[in-house]
């Protein structure tokens, strides 16, 4: 017989007899690989798309000049156009216009309109030129014409010759669709029009968003950038295309890393299942393997055989995982968008690319993890002495090899230490490591914990009164805790993760809800079709709002995006009336703010969100420059507040300061308090009667909160899905371990039958055992899960999203989950044990080699 044939025989025999075990292992690996691969595919598609889209907006530009504020004075344009070393300067005005027609069906319907000078853009961004028809070649200069990308045409359901109505603040602008673009990036929703027309029609006279520069041949880019940076001062930013890439990566990084960690957890669970499966399998086949050794198989051959067994499972799992991952990514991209519902990349429709390198990586990861999981049991089995291994009862030497109390202690202690370490590159690496270490430590410690608990239970058992089945189950669990612990591992891992996620999400949601109540004190809020509208409401319109009857108080808010670091997403600047002596009345401060008398008179107070402290080091009392004003002004951080709305950072300042420094007296939002004698409905009617009310969104506070919470739930959609997957994997683990375990205990059952236990009694005993074990798993899982949730809430979240939250335990939900898992596990044990109890009694006892 050739060794190849033997290998095949053995593999086939093993898999054939333990189909469920194999299927579960394959499924677990598949889920882990699929999840990781999906997240990688979606994110790389989104980032690639985002970079490509941003890049296509810059064309072949060598350098982009932009300001920290969204727009800047056009006087810079001729200065740069004449600058030495610059061959061509292309001025652009980027308008984020609202599409009122879409406001009903979607949140923040933004159409990006690029105002450009076709003559200057032709050599730098030729793709962005509008294609005029033969009859109207001068449309590119017309002040009523707009050119749309195919995606924009499709989105707006218009074709050439139609009209579109867009909004800028309270103003509505109707534009004629004059044609398409030379070559728009697929899926990118953009519109192009003449820069002069854009400045005029959108009330941005004298303003530019950026200037694309083409340097003269032979000019050293880096040196030139340095010179120009010094010349322009801190109010301007010079960026190259790679900065945009970094920006895209930073935008979704925290989110992506968190999801990847979840994928790793799934893989880890899979590896654990493989491990427990292999342990059980080697226990079960101990005498069979020993026989093979006696018959002449070498240690090496046996090790290879065992590794091959699980390796092939890993290959199958990884391959199907890759396929599933691709499928999931396609579905998720289609239904949830490139950011899985988190809202980072609006206006993009990324397409999926199969990435061989990533596929190989995840394949190797999946297979590698499987091999790793089976290495220890395989090693032990191959190195066991064949003679004793042939004897009955030697199974438990395998488990002895797995006893590693020191490892458990080390893992748990290191985990606790890691939980206290700071983030690495803005990522909570140690927080996640702590979670993994706690999980490993708990699993390794499980046999002891299990033994201890059930021994305690056994001691308190009154042998006389207790049910004999119960006594048998507890005795078994207390004495053979090693084997039980393996079945328990799956429940522990999945349930603890579920508990951790549930506590984290609930804490987050409750904190957000409380925070919303704090930041939305008014009765009514209004803003134009889109957020951070460049035009917003004029002073006249503000006057009309303020003089409405039944309005007790009105706060105007100006909100603009500002760039403090070109490689990071924009920070939001919010200017609103703030009482310097009591900023806490409108700002949800998390600690005591700087008293107003300790703010130097030459500085302007700002209150920053927690993210600003983490990302930019804006600590209370720190004096900073925010080049939003010319000449530049010194600001002082007067307080830190909690912000769940803008994870990239936000700064609040007094509206009066903002207006004095920038001269911008438009506003983006208004908050209205209705007088006690009037109704909100009456004020809404009065607002709707205003001449400029049409593109305004008027929302009652309740609705704002509802919308915000809906968005919150949407961004956690994936998390909920993952929880379900984790539970599924955990239950499959229980089923697999139970059915495997009952097979290894076939002789035990035989003896029990011989001494008088009926089939059904054994059956019930096993179910009871399963229930007890699951109960123990649920309790341990709950404790571990709570610990992990603390890490997630107080370490991982603040470090990756830069916000803090309070702990809230969802008791009802947790109890429900515990009961569900307990029920499911007991049911699984019940089903799995049916097979065990049904065997031939005589044969079962004789089954001794």
């Amino acid at each position, binding site marked *: 017989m050739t060794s190849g044939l033997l290998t095949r025989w053995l593999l086939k025999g093993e898999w054939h007899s333990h189909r469920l075990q194999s299927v579960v292992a394959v499924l677990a690996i598949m889920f882990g690989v699929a999840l990781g691969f999906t997240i990688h595919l979606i994110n790389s598609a989104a980032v690639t798309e985002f970079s490509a889209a941003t890049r296509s907006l810059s064309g072949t530009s060598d350098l982009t000049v932009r300001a920290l504020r969204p727009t800047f004075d056009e006087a810079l344009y001729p200065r740069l156009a004449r600058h030495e070393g610059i061959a061509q300067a292309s001025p652009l005005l980027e308008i984020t216009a609202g599409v009122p027609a879409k406001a009903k069906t979607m949140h923040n319907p933004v159409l990006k309109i690029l105002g450009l*000078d076709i003559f200057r853009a032709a050599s730098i961004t030729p793709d962005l030129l509008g294609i005029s028809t033969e009859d109207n*070649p*001068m*449309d590119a200069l017309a002040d009523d014409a707009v050119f749309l990308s195919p995606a924009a045409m499709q989105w707006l359901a218009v074709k050439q010759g139609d009209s579109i109505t867009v909004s800028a603040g309270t103003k509505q602008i109707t534009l004629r669709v004059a044609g398409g673009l030379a070559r728009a990036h697929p899926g990118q929703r953009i519109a192009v029009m003449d820069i*002069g027309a854009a400045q005029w029609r959108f009330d941005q*006279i004298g303003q530019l968003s950026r200037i694309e520069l083409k340097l003269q041949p032979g000019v050293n880019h880096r040196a030139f950038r340095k010179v120009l940076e010094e010349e322009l001062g801190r109010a301007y930013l010079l960026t190259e295309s790679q900065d945009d890439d970094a920006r895209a990566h930073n935008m979704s990084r925290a989110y992506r890393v968190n999801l990847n960690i979840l994928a790793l957890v799934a893989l880890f669970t899979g590896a654990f299942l493989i491990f427990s499966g292999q342990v059980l399998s080697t226990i079960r086949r101990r005498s069979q393997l020993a026989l093979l050794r006696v018959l002449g198989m070498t240690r090496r051959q046996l090790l290879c055989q065992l590794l091959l067994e699980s390796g092939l499972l890993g290959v199958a799992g990884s391959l199907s995982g890759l396929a599933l991952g691709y499928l999931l990514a396609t579905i998720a991209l289609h239904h949830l968008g490139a950011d899985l519902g988190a809202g980072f990349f609006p206006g993009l429709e990324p397409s999926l690319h199969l990435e061989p390198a990533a596929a190989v990586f995840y394949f190797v990861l999946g297979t590698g993890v499987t091999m790793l999981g089976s290495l220890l049991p395989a090693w032990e089995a191959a190195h066991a002495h064949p003679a004793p291994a042939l004897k009955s009862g030697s199974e438990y030497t395998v488990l002895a090899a797995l006893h590693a109390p020191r490892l458990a202690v080390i893992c748990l202690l290191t985990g606790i230490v890691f939980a206290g370490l700071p983030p690495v590159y803005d990522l909570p690496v140690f927080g996640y490591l702590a979670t993994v270490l706690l999980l490993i430590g708990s699993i390794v410690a499980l046999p002891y914990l299990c033994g201890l608990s059930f021994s305690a239970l056994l001691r308190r058992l009154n042998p006389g009164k207790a049910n004999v089945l119960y006594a048998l189950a507890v005795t078994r669990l207390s004495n053979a805790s090693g084997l039980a612990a393996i079945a328990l591992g799956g429940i522990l891992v999945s349930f603890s993760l579920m508990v951790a996620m549930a506590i984290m999400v609930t804490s987050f949601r409750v904190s957000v809800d409380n925070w919303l109540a704090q930041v939305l004190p008014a009765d009514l809020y209004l803003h134009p079709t889109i957020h951070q509208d460049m035009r917003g409401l004029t002073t006249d319109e503000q006057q009309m709002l303020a003089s409405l009857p039944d309005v007790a108080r009105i706060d105007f808010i100006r909100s603009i995006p500002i760039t403090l670091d070109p490689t990071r997403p924009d920070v939001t600047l919010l200017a609103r009336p703030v009482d310097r002596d009591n900023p806490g009345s409108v700002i949800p401060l998390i600690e005591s703010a700087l008293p107003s008398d300790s703010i130097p008179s030459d500085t302007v107070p700002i209150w920053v969100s927690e993210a600003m402290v983490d990302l930019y080091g804006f600590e209370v009392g720190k004096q900073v420059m925010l080049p939003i004003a010319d000449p530049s002004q010194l600001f002082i951080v007067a307080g830190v507040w909690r912000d769940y709305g803008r994870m990239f950072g936000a700064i609040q300042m007094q509206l009066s300061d903002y207006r004095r420094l920038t001269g911008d007296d438009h506003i983006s939002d208004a908050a209205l308090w209705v007088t006690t004698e009037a109704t909100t409905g009456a004020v809404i009617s009065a607002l709707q009667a205003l001449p400029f009310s049409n593109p305004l969104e008027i929302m009652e506070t309740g609705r704002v909160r509802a919308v915000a919470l809906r968005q919150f739930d949407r961004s956690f959609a994936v998390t909920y899905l993952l929880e379900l997957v984790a539970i599924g994997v955990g239950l499959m683990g229980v089923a697999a371990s139970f059915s495997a375990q009952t097979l290894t205990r076939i002789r035990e059952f035989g003896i029990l039958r011989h001494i008088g236990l009926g089939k059904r009694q054994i059956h019930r005993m096993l179910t009871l055992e399963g229930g007890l074990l699951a109960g123990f798993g649920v309790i341990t899982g709950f404790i571990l899960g709570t610990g992990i949730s603390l890490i997630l809430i107080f370490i991982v979240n603040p470090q990756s999203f830069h916000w803090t939250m309070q702990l809230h335990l969802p008791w009802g939900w947790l109890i429900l989950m515990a009961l569900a898992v307990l029920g499911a596990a007991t049911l699984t044990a019940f089903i799995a044990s049916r097979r065990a109890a049904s065997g031939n009694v005589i044969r079962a006892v004789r089954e001794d080699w």
Partner: protein
Amino acid sequence: MRYLWVLFSWLILLQPLLLAAPPVLTSVIPGKVLKFPDDHGAHPDFRIEWWYVTGWLTTSAGDPLGFQITFFRLATQADEDNPSNFAPHQLIIAHAALSDPKVGKLLHDQRIVRAGFDLAYAKTGNADVKLDDWFFTRAADGHYHTRIETENFTLNFTLTPTQPLMLQGDNGFSRKGPQAAQASYYYSEPHLQVSGTINHLEKNIPVTGTAWLDREWSSEYLATDAAGWDWASANLDDGSALMAFQIRGKDGSKVWAYATLRDPSGQTRSFTPDQVSFTPIRTWRSSHTQAVYPVATRIRTGETEWQITPLMDDQELDSRSSTRAVYWEGAVTFRRDGESVGKGYMELTGYVQPLTM
């Protein structure tokens, strides 16, 4: 009477919306007395205007070259109410070309931008036109200075007047068609003495030569049945100056024609449409555009016949990528009775496709 009439006709066609304040343009009327130096400068109230220099050069090595430098100013339909500095009220367009028989094809470059920010303008009061680093200016003493730097060549010239201005048509009122409205203000400055340098084939070469300046502005457009035109001017060796043009109909017939000949003493003779004719002697097919141009032509003005032969055949300027026009504009030699009598330039337009008006 240049190719930009094409662009110009598009602008006329373009009446996209009821503008709050459409630009009001001045029309060309007979009897207006041109005033200098003001009329050297721009006339922004007219639709279109150009400063058009063509001439022959001799390098220090004695080789002949031809050059063309043109600046156009074009008033658009942009709303007068638009306060933006980017509002495209006026466009500045420039073409530059160098004919070198050693290269065998026309070297050329063109630019188009909107006037504004002092980066591009056509000023009033005296000739002062600028498009980024290309410019054409006239000093108070009448000298012109121009500098054009392209990827392939650089032209840097001073033009010195040697003769008085030559008002075309009726004291500068030049008819372009059978209807009185089809007219422009038109004057020329022949026998401009050129001195300067060119950078060509990576060498700085001092050059001298003789050039012809055409100045024309108008708000009206060509007759609807016009398909193109042929134009030629010559600085004759005896100090005379000759200019002739014809406007062709879609069937190739002559819609309008005109010619002037000024002798060294300043005596001017004008020729009516029926006294002027253009007859092809030899055609050349462009390999770039497949257009067939009558590069060698016989022009009759009254009883005189001029034979025109090109410095080289391929002097086609293809600017379809930027300003959409394709035309032939080349250095030519004028012969009378087989004898060379002078050098000048010829322009042939509307040979690629009939110009849709």
